């Protein structure tokens, strides 16, 4: 089948392929789209809907996007709405931010968020802080989007996860979607939002198929920023995660099911503002918590979640100390085995869950 071939082409790892194949059988029954399609559609719809929205970045127009995220958009919308830039992140992030201050609604694509470090002054000082400093006089309705975190075999400089860096900054909204529905609803919400949004995608799952409802495919489908989703209900332990972390959480949950362990998987969806209520409610139910993410451990999202749980009344409901699963505390190597073992795997989640549950 064509879709199977596409899936095989799109994935490098067996784990991802296994996951996709299991979805393919479901694909015969309901509609599915890839994350790539979800993002392209969301941008297309919002550009069509509002004259002020435009996409700017390297290779977004005539190349259809370095990762084909803007395929077909330049042909449809033209030079004015889809703008190719030179390789000058600081410059074009500044230009996009200035355009937002002056009333347009730019989508500024970073080819990967690694290159956003060249422009980070504009994301933080020009975009995030301006509404506050101007006491509400100057809005900055911009979306910075692109792939975040590791890809496959691209080594240390191209593999950093910026979730915690951006989520630390007040004034920004930071979204880290997982599924195609997340991407559609949250990207549309981000573009319609009047505040600066950092939208962290993940390249490894761009080609993954997800089931999607008709409602989620409607042009005005938006999801609320700042609200997480219970991706899988359970009663023994809470797994709090986001983006590609959800993937290994769901796989771990499936395996643990066979051992009689019922995991509740929380998809945070938004990192800032963080939906702590959904985590607290879950922890009060399950009494156990493991956080899962692909970024580095120090000052991780997991550290923040655990701090908040411990500072709240949810602490009293814990039956064991909460622990984290993260990427290894090293720059990412190129060699395959080293790389695979520097990023969290299902086995790390299984080990952590069993430890917390004392099994």
């Amino acid at each position, binding site marked *: 089948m064509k879709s199977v071939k596409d899936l095989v082409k799109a994935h490098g790892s067996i784990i991802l392929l296994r996951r996709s194949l299991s979805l393919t059988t479901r694909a015969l029954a309901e509609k599915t789209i890839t994350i790539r399609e979800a993002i392209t559609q969301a941008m297309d719809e919002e550009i069509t809907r509002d004259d002020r929205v435009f996409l700017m970045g390297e290779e977004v127009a005539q190349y259809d996007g370095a990762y084909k995220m803007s395929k077909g958009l330049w042909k449809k919308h033209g030079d004015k709405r889809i703008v190719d830039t030179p390789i000058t992140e*600081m410059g074009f992030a500044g230009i*996009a*931010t*200035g355009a937002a201050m002056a009333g347009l609604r730019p989508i500024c694509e970073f080819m990967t968020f690694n290159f956003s470090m060249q422009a980070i002054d504009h994301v933080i000082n020009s975009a995030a802080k301006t509404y506050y*400093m101007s*006491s509400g*006089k*100057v809005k900055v309705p911009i979306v910075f989007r692109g792939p975040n975190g590791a890809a496959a075999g691209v080594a240390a400089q191209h593999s950093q996860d910026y979730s915690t860096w951006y989520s630390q900054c007040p*004034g920004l909204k930071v979204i880290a979607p997982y599924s195609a529905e997340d991407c559609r609803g949250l990207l549309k919400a981000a573009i319609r939002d009047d505040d600066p949004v950092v939208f962290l995608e993940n390249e490894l799952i761009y080609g993954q198929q997800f089931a999607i409802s008709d409602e989620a495919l409607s042009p005005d489908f938006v999801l609320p920023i700042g*609200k997480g989703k219970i991706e899988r209900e359970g009663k023994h332990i809470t797994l709090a995660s986001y983006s590609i972390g959800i993937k290994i959480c769901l796989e771990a949950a499936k395996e643990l099911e066979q051992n009689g362990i019922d995991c509740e998987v929380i998809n945070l969806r938004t990192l800032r503002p963080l939906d702590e209520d959904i985590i607290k409610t879950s922890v009060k139910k399950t009494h156990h918590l493991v956080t899962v993410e692909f970024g580095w451990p120090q000052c991780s999202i997991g550290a923040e979640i655990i701090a908040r749980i411990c500072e709240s009344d949810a602490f009293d409901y814990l039956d064991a100390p909460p622990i984290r699963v993260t990427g290894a505390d090293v720059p990412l190597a190129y060699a395959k085995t080293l790389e695979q073992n520097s990023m969290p795997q299902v086995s790390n989640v299984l080990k952590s869950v069993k430890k917390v549950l004392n099994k």
Partner: protein
Amino acid sequence: MNINTKIVLRLQPYGRHLLQKQLKQANSPVPLLVTSIREASSGAALEYDAPNAYKFHMLEKGPNTHVSCNREEGLDYYKKMQIVRRMEASANNMYKSKLIRGFCHLYSGQEAVCVGMKAAMDKNDSLITAYRAHGWTFMMGVPVTGVLAELTGRKSGCAEGRGGSMHMYAPNFYGGNGIVGAQVPLGAGVAFAHKYRGESNVCIALYGDGAANQGQVFEAYNMAKLWSLPCIFVCENNGYGMGTSSARASANPNFYKRCEYIPGIWVDGMDILAVREATRFAREWCTSGKGPMIMEMATYRYFGHSMSDPGTSYRTREEIQDVRKSRDPITSFREKLVQAKIATEDEFKAIDNDVKKIIEDAENHAQNDPELHVDELYSHVYSQPPPKFKIRGCDNFTFKEVSK
């Protein structure tokens, strides 16, 4: 009857040396400043030739060297420059009395640039500058109270005291920016928005001789030229980037020539009418679809870089005094108006008194108006906070729910 009078002004040695230094950078010998002043018989106007007010880069012809203004304009420009001068003097005093904290970068000496450029701007043009922004803030429509009260952090400040000296805003005025050079691509972005919406307006993006070497400035030049953005890049060259002279910081200190594909004009930034004329020319260039333009305003700041810099460790007091005596933008303009019999000394004294009252009233507000209530520290983080949004304070027991 009209009388043509040629007046040759001989400069003091130090002043001439400074002029020499600035003109040497533009590769020309020291000229004698020649002004011809015409006494008008009716409809009082100041007119004169300023043949050395401009230098060009990649331009065959430039702004008119014959400049003029009528009485109304002359008095208006004088008053505005005087307001900026006195406002900055007030800021200086209040800083020394510890009513203003943090950074305070004064514009004194550079008044002809902000008043002259604004005089050539359309009311819907945009502007963005760096942190030496108080003069620009006033010219872009914020009353003196809005500036001084912002400096003292009061509610009546133009950003309610949240921004301070470096972050003042007004319609079409995007600050006030603290990070050196950041305002340049932002300004190109504002110009992008003008073009996108089909407006025939420009954005003026200002930066200093220190910021002129920032990489992002060149990134902005490149995209502005590629996309023909209606952006006027203006280098306010006051000779020093904090304590470093432009000669020590820039391999090429001819800032108007820094881009090999964007035309540039060097302007005598102490001559307000030349500044206005050059800005008109640049504006016409940009709005006729010819793309961006660069301007370098040769100007001078009397104070140090900021209030923590006395400004005398890297330049001599004589140099400062000589510029004040021979090239001050306000007194030289006033002299021209008096000599052309456009207005009398008494009229200027009356304007000065008027200005004094404006500043005193503003100072009153700046010193006595209240600050924002402390709970306001949680406001305006987001323009669209999610429902029931709580912001954490300094400990686990301090949270504020905000709806704005």
